[in-house]
């Protein structure tokens, strides 16, 4: 992926090799074990389900290997997230259990979120190193540590690592994940995946390590995790949960070691990783075996199994000894080197006391737990060592079924734990050179300098050995008084789960708050938009700067000095009318009057524009204003009376939100006023734009009317698209109104059979009255009808003139179209729906729009026939030498105007037709 700046790259060094061997080695053993684990169990689920498990397991193994072998941060991250997903699938494997689902979700959510943070941290690091190559980043440590982003990166990466390695306070997902099938737990949650966080920290040590922040963060988090895991573990009644907490404790110790900036700490780290992987893998498999044989993992019910399962007991004892940190096993060596490295002098003397003390305590608790696993399960009778407050569950059915045929595990199932247990022993007793070299290599690559690792168990009697002895003594004592210890812990609830739930609840509340803004009312939405707009204009638009501009005061002064001409008076009165009418339209209760007031304010604006002077624009404004009013009134007539009265009544009681709206409206008006003022005051005295068009309109386009020239020629491209927009709106109106009506009509026809006669009668009566009367069945006077009749041909003529001469004079296709539409609207009002439809049958909207669009296409393509480029202005009359009267040019522009007129007319008739349709014809 060169474009990513990243590539798929893998690399193998000492650290990767150690992890790689653990992953593949234990992975192989787990696979063998799982084959037996699933075999006699749940015969119905065999076959596909089992295959699914192995598929996930192997996928996970691939992802895990990829994580430790990745030589590029993106590759690393991809595999990292893959481990999260495959582990999710493995935990949720038993989908029918609610606990599995919850556990899986928790694990994926926590580690997934951590993964995303990790990505951010890695990206920052690679941005600062100009490469996503892991080795380049690692070698860029000095620059990274000096960067101002160092702490951000460190926090993000540590967050990723801590969530993955179940460090406090994110540790709670790991016990929840114990609902996974045991082979998965043994592999993921002890030997491999949870160590990925430690791996990452170790890997990035040269880049981020050896600073005070690194030391304190990792030491403190690691130490707290170590203690909390060890303490809570003691309280557990589930064998697997106990193992999970002891894993958390061990992971805490490893994190703490990564935080020490000494070579000896890395020696302890690699030994610890290997030792833990070996004994914890074995113990998990044994726990699974015990569960398998007895049907329970509850420590209160297990006991005295050594008779029935002697071989299993032997393996558990060896692994347990290693976990307890007793010689001559690897666990002992791990604890020894841990203590040695913690006793190394550091910058802060306090840690030299606290850390070893904490480790001794944790070591003691580990021993107790190891004893619980090995002794309580296999030697002492069930229930021994539990205080009364740990109520024994009533013996489950499941348990009683299995109890009488408990037997030792099949050899195949024992093979893997035996090998792991034996390795714990062999490595320390035989001390093979190859293992020492492997560990030394791993430690050296991590630390960046040579680290010596020897597997000698005893050097001399020194402080670590003494402390180790103390830990053993305390641990043994704790085991003896485990009942009392458990009773104390029982009352000390330490649960991050509660916090996790509390945080989720808090998020929920925040989410509710945010969604409360969304109350479904458009008024609220518009309110928010307007407020945001105001904030934006005031803050971003530098309104204060605008206000302090001297242009404003200057313009005021000029205005006051100017003379009052009659035009000024007219302008002022038009302005006053516009403002007053708008105000009335807001205040007045009757809807019809409000519409009329609104329309008159629009007409006043048209007067203002006409005074500017720009008659073209004024004409359009006036005509559009009238047309909108007609449409609004027609629409109003379709709203049932009682609804209109309801709305009017609503306006009588101004609510609080109304007052806010009024305030906001004033604020917006003020800002808009200031903007307009500034715009008017600062515009150049001499127009820059107009002279250009005045100069070029006639020679370039053959049109003396600038507005017309702009619309059809200078910005003809816009106009063409505008026609598309118009046509689209027409299609939209048709879709929404017409088809819904047809549907309603159809359903009405099929609806009632019995009332059909009445219905018919009623309809014929209404139709009759409709034929004779205007809108809403009101009779119109003969005079009005005469006017309407006259208006139609007049409007057509006016439209024709506007189009033909509009190129040089005020008026254009748009106004022509609207003019005719107005006449049609008048017909609807005066003659009523049926009659208008009959008499104006030629005005079919689809036909008009279709012809309009066709003309546009033809007129824009036809110049090609005459050897001109597409869309160029062309005068057909001149080209074909047609005898045309002066001022009448048959040009592409004319065709364009005609097309606009037809499309506008068609769309307007569409709307009028639908709104003018009497309501009884539709419902």
């Amino acid at each position: 992926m060169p474009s990513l700046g990243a590539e798929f790259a893998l690399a193998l060094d000492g650290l990767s090799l150690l992890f790689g061997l653990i992953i593949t080695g234990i992975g192989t053993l787990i696979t063998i074990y799982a084959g037996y684990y699933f075999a006699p169990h749940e015969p119905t689920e065999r076959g596909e389900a089992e295959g699914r498990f192995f598929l996930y397991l192997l996928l996970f193994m691939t992802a895990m290997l990829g994580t430790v072998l990745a030589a590029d941060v993106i590759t690393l991250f991809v595999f990292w997230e893959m481990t999260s997903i495959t582990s999710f699938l493995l935990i949720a494997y038993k989908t029918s259990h609610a606990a599995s689902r919850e556990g899986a979700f928790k694990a994926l959510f926590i580690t997934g979120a951590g993964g995303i943070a990790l990505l951010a941290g890695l990206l920052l690091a690679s941005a600062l190193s100009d490469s996503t190559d892991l080795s380049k980043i690692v070698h860029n440590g000095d620059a990274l540590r000096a960067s101002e982003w160092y702490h951000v990166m460190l926090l993000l990466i540590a967050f990723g690592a801590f969530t993955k390695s179940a460090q406090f306070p994110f540790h709670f997902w790991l016990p929840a994940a114990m609902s996974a099938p045991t082979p998965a737990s043994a592999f993921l949650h002890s030997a491999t995946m949870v160590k990925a966080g430690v791996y990452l920290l170790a890997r990035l040590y040269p880049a981020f390590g050896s600073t005070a922040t690194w030391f304190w963060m990792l030491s403190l988090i690691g130490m707290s995790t170590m203690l909390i895991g060890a303490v809570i573990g003691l309280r557990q009644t589930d064998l697997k949960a106990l193992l999970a907490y002891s894993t958390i404790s061990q992971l805490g110790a490893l994190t703490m070691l990564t935080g020490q900036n000494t070579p000896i700490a890395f020696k302890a780290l690699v030994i610890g990783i290997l030792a833990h992987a070996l004994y914890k893998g074995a113990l998990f498999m044994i726990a699974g075996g015990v569960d398998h044989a007895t049907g329970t993992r509850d420590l209160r019910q297990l006991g005295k199994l050594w008779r029935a399962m002697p071989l299993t007991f032997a393996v558990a004892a060896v692994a347990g000894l290693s976990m307890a940190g007793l010689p001559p096993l690897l666990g002992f060596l791990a604890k020894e080197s841990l203590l040695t490295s913690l006793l190394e002098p550091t910058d802060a003397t306090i840690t030299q006391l606290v850390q070893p003390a904490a480790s001794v305590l944790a070591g003691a608790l580990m021993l107790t737990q190891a004893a619980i696993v090995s002794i309580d399960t296999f030697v002492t009778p069930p229930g021994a060592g539990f205080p009364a407050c740990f109520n024994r569950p009533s013996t489950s059915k499941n348990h009683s079924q299995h109890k009488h045929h408990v037997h030792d595990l099949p050899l195949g199932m024992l093979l893997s734990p035996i090998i792991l247990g034996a390795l714990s022993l062999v490595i320390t007793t035989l001390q093979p050179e190859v293992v020492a070299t492997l560990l030394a290599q791993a430690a050296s690559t991590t630390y960046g300098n040579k680290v010596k690792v020897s597997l000698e168990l005893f050097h001399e009697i020194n402080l670590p050995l003494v402390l180790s002895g103390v830990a053993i003594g305390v641990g043994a004592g704790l085991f003896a008084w485990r009942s009392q210890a458990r009773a104390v812990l029982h009352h000390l609830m330490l649960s991050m789960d509660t916090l996790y739930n509390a945080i989720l609840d808090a998020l929920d509340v925040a989410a509710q708050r945010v969604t409360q803004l969304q109350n479904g009312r458009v008024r609220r939405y518009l309110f928010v938009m307007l407020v945001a707009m105001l904030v934006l204009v005031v803050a971003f638009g530098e309104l204060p700067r605008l206000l302090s501009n001297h242009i404003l005061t200057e313009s005021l002064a000029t205005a006051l000095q100017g003379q009052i001409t009659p035009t000024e008076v007219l302008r002022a009165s038009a302005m006053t009318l516009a403002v007053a009418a708008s105000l009335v339209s807001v205040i007045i209760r009757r809807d019809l009057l409000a519409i009329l007031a609104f329309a008159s304010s629009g007409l006043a604006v048209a007067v203002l524009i006409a005074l500017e002077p720009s008659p073209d624009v004024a004409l359009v404004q006036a005509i559009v204003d009238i047309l909108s009013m007609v449409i609004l009134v027609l629409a109003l007539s379709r709203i049932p009376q009682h609804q209109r009265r309801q709305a009017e009544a609503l306006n009588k009681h101004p609510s609080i939100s109304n007052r806010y709206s009024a305030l906001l409206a004033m604020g917006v008006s003020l800002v808009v006023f200031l903007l307009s003022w500034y715009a008017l005051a600062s515009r150049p005295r001499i127009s820059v734009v107009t002279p250009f068009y005045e100069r070029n309109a006639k020679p370039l386009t053959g049109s003396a009317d600038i507005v017309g020239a702009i619309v059809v020629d200078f910005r003809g491209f816009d106009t063409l698209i505008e026609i598309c927009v118009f046509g689209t709106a027409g299609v939209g109106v048709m879709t929404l109104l017409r088809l819904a009506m047809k549907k309603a009509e159809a359903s009405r026809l099929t609806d009632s059979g019995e009332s059909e006669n009445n219905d018919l009668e009623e309809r014929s009566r209404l139709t009759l009255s409709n034929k004779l009367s205007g809108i809403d069945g009101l009779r119109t006077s003969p005079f009005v009808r005469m006017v309407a009749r006259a208006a139609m041909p007049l409007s057509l003529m006016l439209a024709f003139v506007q189009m033909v001469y509009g190129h040089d004079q005020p008026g254009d296709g748009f106004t022509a179209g609207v003019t005719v539409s107005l006449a049609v609207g008048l017909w609807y009002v005066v003659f009523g729906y049926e009659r208008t439809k009959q008499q104006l049958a030629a005005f079919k909207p689809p036909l008009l729009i279709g012809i309009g669009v066709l003309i546009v296409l033809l007129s824009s393509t036809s110049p090609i026939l005459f050897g001109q480029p597409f869309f160029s202005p062309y005068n057909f009359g001149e080209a074909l030498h047609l005898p045309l009267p002066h001022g009448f040019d048959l040009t592409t522009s004319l065709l364009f105007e005609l097309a606009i007129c037809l499309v506008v007319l068609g769309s307007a008739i569409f709307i009028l037709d639908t709104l003018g349709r009497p309501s009884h014809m539709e419902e």
Partner: protein
Amino acid sequence: MMINSTDVVAVLPFISVALGSVGLLIADLLIPAERRHVTAWLAAALLLTAAVIALSLLGSPTFEAFGGMVISDPTAFFLDTLICTIGLVTILLTLRYNQVRGILRGEFYILLALSISGMTLVTHANNLLILLLGIELLSIPLYVLCGIARPRLESEESALKYFLTGAFASGFLVYGIALTYGASGTLSLQTAPAAPNVSGDPLLLIGIGLILVGLGFKVAAVPFHLWAPDTYEGAPTTVTAFMATATKVAGFAALLRVLHGGLPGMESTWQPLVAIIAAATMIVGNLAALAQQNLKRMLAYSSIAHAGYALVGVAAHDTTSVVFYLTGYAFTTLAAFAVITAIGSSEGEEMQFLEAYSGLGRQKPLLGAVLAIAMFSLIGIPPTVGFIGKYFVFQAAVAKGLVWLAVLGVLTSAMAAYYYLRVVMVAFIREGSAAAPLPTPSAPRNLAAAISVAAVFVLGVVPALLLSMIGNGMLSTTP
């Protein structure tokens, strides 16, 4: 106005879709009412043709046309291709869904095509007026499409809300354009800030700010997002799918045209504003999505949140990352909507609530898998395209020094994992028999789902494929 053939080539995708829609309008009249799916297939063929045309133009150099009104660069043609492809996938989704709900109408497809024609114009806009026209052309059909399930009340409500707020936003846009024109004397995006004595003019700044408000509405950025959840929930799901993807892409195309392609030299002015909007959008979108029990509404909020991520790329002035992010987001969201359109009773009642999806993964493993893949990609988990997209925008932000924005993006993504994963949980893990009755399978819908899922993976694994197509980003003709 002199026009030559290169001008036409510049907007060939637009012209072909626009003319095609008119042809569709005529053709639809000739198709009997009970054979409306023919119109759908014709529309699909039209969009396919347009997509192929746009694809074949990818290699053409950057040039202005129609006197600087429009501009053509590989990114614009890529966006054309993307939008037409989204339209095509949407049509595949509609066939069964619309038929069941009685909205398999010819106009549906005509309006869809018209809306797409507006989008393909926006991608090329080099002039504020063209931008406005394109946006109007894409919006008006959408207002209608939202309400096309009339007389269903929720559909009508959705359309009305969208129309009212949309008209409002268009008002801002026009006002902003007017102020910009007033300040600079030009509508061209290239020369507006270069006009003498205007670079610091408050009018120009306010004008651009208002244009941002109008465009922020189109992409549903906070605080202009309030319409989106209501509209998305009420509109027919196929329309929602189209709006959440194509409209979002087009809205961003407009933003990119204004901010990245135009207004040279003004980056320092708009960058803080866009960054703040991006941050607010990510926070509010994700937070609100947490509370949703309705999958469609959740996806509406999620689309708001994703607009926030894309805005991070916009703020970082990295066009390629934004376009890549949108492409990934679009296909992922289409995959999710493909599942929603598939769930529902044969009477047309939709099953939008999360509860209805419990056990889906077991009853319909493939459908469940599509849903899960979509959710994983929306979170941004590799090897899906959602991951690469987030990677690009965050990387762009870091490179531009907007580290706080990238960190915020990461944190909100982590939060988002919660509500996306919940969907996966419900579909796969929860015991379920409550799943809604599934309508008869639909081959086109399955094809749409397959295309989307394939895109999610292919682009997630080989992003270079897409990057080479997107090109070097919006090129400002003035270097």
